[in-house]
């Protein structure tokens, strides 16, 4: 069960400003039913660029409904220039915080507001900028970079919690990691290119991968592996336990250890056994 604050529960059970607004002059729609949450935000802006009325419709979980309701309270009566400054963190703070897995609900609110304001200003309703990275939830590289930048996200899991990207099939994890890495490596011009590891980073990553992925798997069958040396792309290892005497050890080495290392560290790696 999620731990929701009393404020989230209150806005969920008794949401404010629910419904359609027939005389709205700005509408922002984000999300879809397939995604599991969607928000349609209606704003009415007067001649002084002040939001004089606001309504919402939400399909989604308790925190999506609460975030939408909170947003409407936050922007009601506000000049556009002020409303524009609201971030997803502001929405979450207003609610006394959201579980981290639910931060994407506050992002939904922020995005809908941005779209509604754009709609009011007559800015061409363009689709999200950039190229789609996460096919499952239709999230682009620009959106991921924006979320990383605004919320200081460090891991793929963070990105998923905020904007859902990577939460489906997982095929885009590598690309998301690249976006995160690239973001933290600037400033300067970003030249997207395949990640090239420095020697020290490569050694570290090989060690980590052996410890985290490979050793536990081998140990389940009574075996183990030890890193002896790394020379360029050649990784020298020693097989231990049952692996040392197993007739299938070469198979394990090439079909498992090498493939894992190539997948997780660098594609050119070769694993050699030291007796």
């Amino acid at each position, binding site marked *: 069960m999620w731990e929701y604050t009393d404020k989230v529960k209150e806005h*969920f*059970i008794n*949401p404010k400003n629910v419904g359609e607004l027939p005389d709205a002059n700005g509408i922002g729609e984000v999300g879809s*039913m397939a995604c599991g949450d969607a928000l349609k935000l209606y704003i009415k802006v007067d001649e002084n660029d002040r939001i004089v009325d606001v309504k919402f*419709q939400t399909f*989604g*979980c*308790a925190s999506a409904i609460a975030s939408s309701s909170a947003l409407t309270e936050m922007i009601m009566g506000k000049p556009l220039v002020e409303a524009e400054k609201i971030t997803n963190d502001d929405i979450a703070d207003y609610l006394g915080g959201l579980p981290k897995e639910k931060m994407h609900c506050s992002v939904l609110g922020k995005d809908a507001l941005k779209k509604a304001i754009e709609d009011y200003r007559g800015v061409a309703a363009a689709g999200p900028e950039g190229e789609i990275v996460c096919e499952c939830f239709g999230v682009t590289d620009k959106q991921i970079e924006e979320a990383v930048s605004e919320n200081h996200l460090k891991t793929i899991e963070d990105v998923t919690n905020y904007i859902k990207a990577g939460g*489906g099939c997982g095929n885009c994890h590598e690309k998301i990691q690249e976006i995160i890495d690239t973001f933290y490596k600037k400033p300067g011009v970003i030249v997207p290119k395949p990640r090239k590891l420095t020697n020290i980073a490569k050694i570290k990553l090989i060690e980590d991968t052996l410890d985290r992925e490979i050793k536990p798997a081998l140990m389940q069958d009574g075996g183990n592996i030890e890193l002896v040396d790394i020379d360029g792309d050649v990784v020298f290892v020693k097989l231990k336990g049952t692996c040392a005497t197993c007739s299938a050890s070469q198979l394990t080495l090439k079909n498992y250890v090498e493939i894992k290392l190539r997948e997780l560290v660098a594609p050119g790696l070769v694993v050699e056994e030291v007796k």
Partner: protein
Amino acid sequence: MDVVYMDNNATTAVAPEVKDEMLPFMTEYYGNPSSMHTFGGQVGRKIVEARERVAQLINADPSEVIFTSCGTESDNTAIRAALASNPDKKHIITTRVEHPAIKNLCENLEKKHYHVTWVPVDKKGNLDCDYLYDHLTDDTALVSVMWANNETGVVFPIAEISRHARERGIVFHTDAVQAAGKVSVDVKAAEVDMLSMSGHKIHALKGVGVLYIRKGTKFSPFMIGGHQEQGRRGGTENVASIIGLGKAAQMAKAHLGAGMEQVKSLRDRLEQGLLKSIPNTILNGDKQNRLPNTLNLSFEYVEGEAILLMMDKYSICASSGSACTSGSLEPSHVLRAMGVPFTAAHGSIRFSLSVYNTEKEVDFVIEKLPPIIAKLRQMSPFWKEGTCRAQ
């Protein structure tokens, strides 16, 4: 307000009779059943009785029953034992709708040189058995198919599948955690090699399970230790829980006839009441071929977690296949395997009843749920009364 508990496929209330049976073994009778003295020995005799009671529920011989710590341990033990006794075979067949205990274990084995065939289900959640039979090969070490699905309650033709596996000399395991106690589970009639059960789904405590191993089945233990369970599962027995499970098994057997008929009639009353009063509601699963206690409904255009929390206000307990309740972002793998559209999967609610539910409780849910769905639909941008079907 009293809790209206309709989440019995998640866990069940401990039966008062089960508690009474266990209590002395949590207090004065604390002896070790393996001890030589009378004080311990009297505990050992109660374990023998519990084993007999469990054996009777599934029509096994008591020597074929071992106690474990949970259904997941039973599943893991069974699968690893089958693979260990067929070291040259690298192929496993299971279904796309298994419990995570089987699903995640098999996905894990896929990474370790095993090849897994995932048998699909149709729209109603029934298994594509021909697909399964077509994929049996000489390399197949194990077939593992759940007896009944936890989310939809759909029951699989275990006797038929096990016969096909046996004809090819392949070990057959079934996860009967949801089926045991709800429908007749007869290991002799179905001729399964191994079967898993869990205590807390049949009104015993959490933390105790059963693995049935047919006499003559090759086996290697998962937990290595003392001679307990005839060396098939080391570790001092979880005495009180095992004794409680024995009592629960005895009661479950007694409830199989009229008791489950009563549960089914309550379930049907709930189903008809909700389908009648809430438009755009879809039944997930096979209406006929289902556990008597399970009802899985999709309420279109609303999201499951929101429904659960609204029901929580009235202390009504159920569960959902929605993404938001799972900790991941994807809705139930069972509903997706059935081809239930995302839109309906997000709004799915599972009610699972037990012999302790009453007609009054069912009517309470039928009264409270329609306004909840209506309120959430009023909020939903996709809901337009009467026109929804066309979308």
